[in-house]
């Protein structure tokens, strides 16, 4: 290991006052309405609704949920009564919907997003795109067959400091990126408050294997998507482990997960999630042969590796006098780098979920496919659908490529 030395570059501001953004906002204010329905207005679904209500022209018409108290919450959020349904097919029978938001638990994603597309509507489907390998292939097939607009909830793809980091990584600024270390750590038992015990599995679906891929699926899916973006391909296999170290409360998914995803040319994503220690928070480190990048929910910082010094030694000093021999120990040579880096300043960036929602509405209006499209969704979801078994079994499993499902 070499000692890192930061070559302090000027901080790069992103999204300062841009005239174009102003004009876009002004145009959007007078935009035609885009009428939306929601399947699954739970905690994430409501957050998506809140963000979409900040997009000019986005209007909510109807919601669908099996848990009735969500109806009043959703209506309160939009500020007027919404049509409500307990069966998503009844919602899709409406004639006044332009697009549908699917934020149901992942085990229902395929059924819901496929039915939306078959009904002729655009869909914003929360991650993780599909729960089983087959459901991932089925969603890709449906997008292909219907040509519908399908955006997956990988909002990091819309964050300007993520985009700028990937651009600079691809431009070679940290050399060849070989490893990504991803952390998503919290001090949180992940439990929802349940009004009565019979609602435990409905409300706390994240805690049970039959309805959840656990931390790999719920948190790691974003970071797998990021690694796929950086490495420009899908992982070939995944090795993982999980355990319940703290919350012995009847849950059947682990409260911590470690996984290694294998990419070509020896490249790796190392994912680590703890829920009883938030020290590392949410962050990604991309390590390359010439430098490193740390990406957090608010910014990104580039570090450059110390260059190997090459000098021209003279024949007389090396060959005639000889070289000295001794211990190779070097006291300070392996200390972690603790100096500054070059920060990408994202102070003026809006919440990435809002940017993703704004982009979705724009895609619906212009009938174009989004950045976080079905292929991005597939790359992360197929790894999670295979990986959740790998971490549970403590084994290595092969991840099928997209072509395999279309044999």
């Amino acid at each position: 290991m070499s000692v890192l030395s930061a070559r302090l570059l000027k901080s790069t501001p992103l999204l300062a006052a841009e005239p174009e953004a102003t004009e876009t906002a002004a145009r959007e204010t007078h935009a035609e309405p885009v009428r939306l329905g929601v399947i699954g207005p739970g905690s994430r679904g409501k957050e998506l609704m809140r963000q979409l209500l900040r997009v000019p022209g986005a209007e909510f018409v109807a919601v669908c949920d099996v848990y009735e108290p969500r109806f009043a919450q959703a209506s309160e959020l939009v500020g007027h009564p919404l049509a409500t349904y307990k069966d998503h097919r009844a919602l899709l029978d409406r004639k006044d919907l332009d697009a549908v938001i699917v934020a149901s638990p992942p085990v229902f994603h395929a059924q819901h997003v496929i039915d939306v597309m078959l009904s002729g509507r655009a869909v914003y489907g929360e991650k993780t795109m599909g729960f089983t390998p087959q459901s991932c292939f089925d969603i890709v097939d449906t997008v292909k067959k219907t040509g519908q607009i399908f955006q997956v909830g990988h909002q990091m793809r819309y964050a300007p400091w993520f985009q700028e980091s990937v651009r600079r990584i691809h431009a070679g600024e940290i050399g060849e990126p070989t490893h990504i270390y991803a952390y998503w750590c919290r001090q949180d038992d992940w439990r929802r408050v349940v009004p009565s015990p019979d609602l435990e599995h409905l409300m706390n679906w994240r805690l049970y294997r039959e309805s959840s891929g656990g931390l790999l699926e719920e948190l790691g899916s974003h970071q797998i998507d990021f690694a796929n973006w950086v490495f420009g391909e899908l992982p070939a296999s995944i090795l993982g482990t999980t355990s319940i170290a703290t919350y012995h409360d009847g849950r059947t998914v682990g409260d911590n997960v470690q996984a290694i995803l294998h990419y070509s040319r020896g490249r790796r994503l190392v994912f680590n999630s703890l829920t009883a220690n938030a020290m590392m928070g949410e962050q990604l480190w991309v390590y390359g042969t010439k430098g490193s990048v740390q990406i957090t929910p608010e910014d990104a910082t580039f570090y450059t590796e110390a260059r190997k010094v090459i000098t021209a030694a003279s024949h007389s000093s090396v060959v005639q006098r000889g070289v000295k021999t001794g211990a190779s120990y070097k006291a300070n040579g392996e200390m972690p780098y603790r100096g500054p880096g070059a920060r990408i300043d994202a102070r003026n960036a809006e919440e990435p979920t809002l940017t993703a929602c704004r982009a979705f509405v724009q895609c619906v209006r212009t009938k174009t496919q989004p950045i976080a499209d079905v292929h991005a969704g597939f790359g992360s979801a197929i790894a999670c659908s295979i990986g959740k078994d790998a971490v549970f079994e403590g084994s290595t499993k092969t991840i099928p490529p997209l072509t395999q499902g279309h044999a």
Partner: protein
Amino acid sequence: MFSFVYPAMGTEFTLHLYAPSEEHASAAARTAFEEVERVESLLSHYRPSSELSRINREAPRSSVTTDPETFQFLETAWEWSRRSDGAFDMTVGRLMKAWGFYGADGSLPARKALAQVRDDVGWEKVRLDPARRTVRFLERGIELDPGGIGKGYAVDRAIHLLRQLPVEAALLSAGSSTIYALGAPPDETGWKVTIPAAHRSESVLCSMVLRDTSISTANHTEKHFVDNGRLYGSIMNPRTLRPVEDTIQVCVISTSATESDVLSNALFVMERKQRARLLEQLPHVSALVLAEGRRAWQHEATRWPAEVSLTT
């Protein structure tokens, strides 16, 4: 009884509640604090990703569409600006920065800097369009500051969710400046709240028992600086562009924590006659104002439910 502390909005939120078990209490506390966190991510002017920060960035250049909750929050704030004749004013963002109160304890501004922010302050320089749910600043330098309303709103939202659970007895305090008393502890008529006197350390101004209502206190003890022997607090008079100096402390009791938070700050800024006029229109509100008189401290009590001691 179970007690929880959660750091948020630049202070500590404290929740005391009665519940059948620790598990129930923890779940309720999580519900309340998650809501406080959500409100902070909506209204914080320290977080670039908050909705309020987005409005501050974009509204000087174009109309900004916002969600119904944020719009309604702003409408409420603007209604109080109107009713208080500008004593409460969220557009003091630049003014607070000029006085060094943004993320710090304050410092005396240069006269030039103060003159520069004059155009950047004024609630009437913001257009709220309910039909389109848009916000537009008419001056480019305007910045909204949620101080004086944000904590009260967070308390109201969290109490709303605690009621739904249902929690029957809880006391939620936002750094002690806004407190809501929900129900009453077992065998009690309400939650006992003591108001220390800001002008005399260790002494108590009054004590009372509150139930299903909120109390907010405004004074200069929390954030201030002293320059040349003179104390400058962070409660600004938007008209003079200076910290208020002759009011010592204001306490307001109202069933809405948003309202008690706003009013404690608005009454702090207003003149005595102005205060009386406003309180006349608000028969459900109680207020206690402690101000510097010619010779001694003076207090104005309006429908105040407890004895006030200025001497102990």
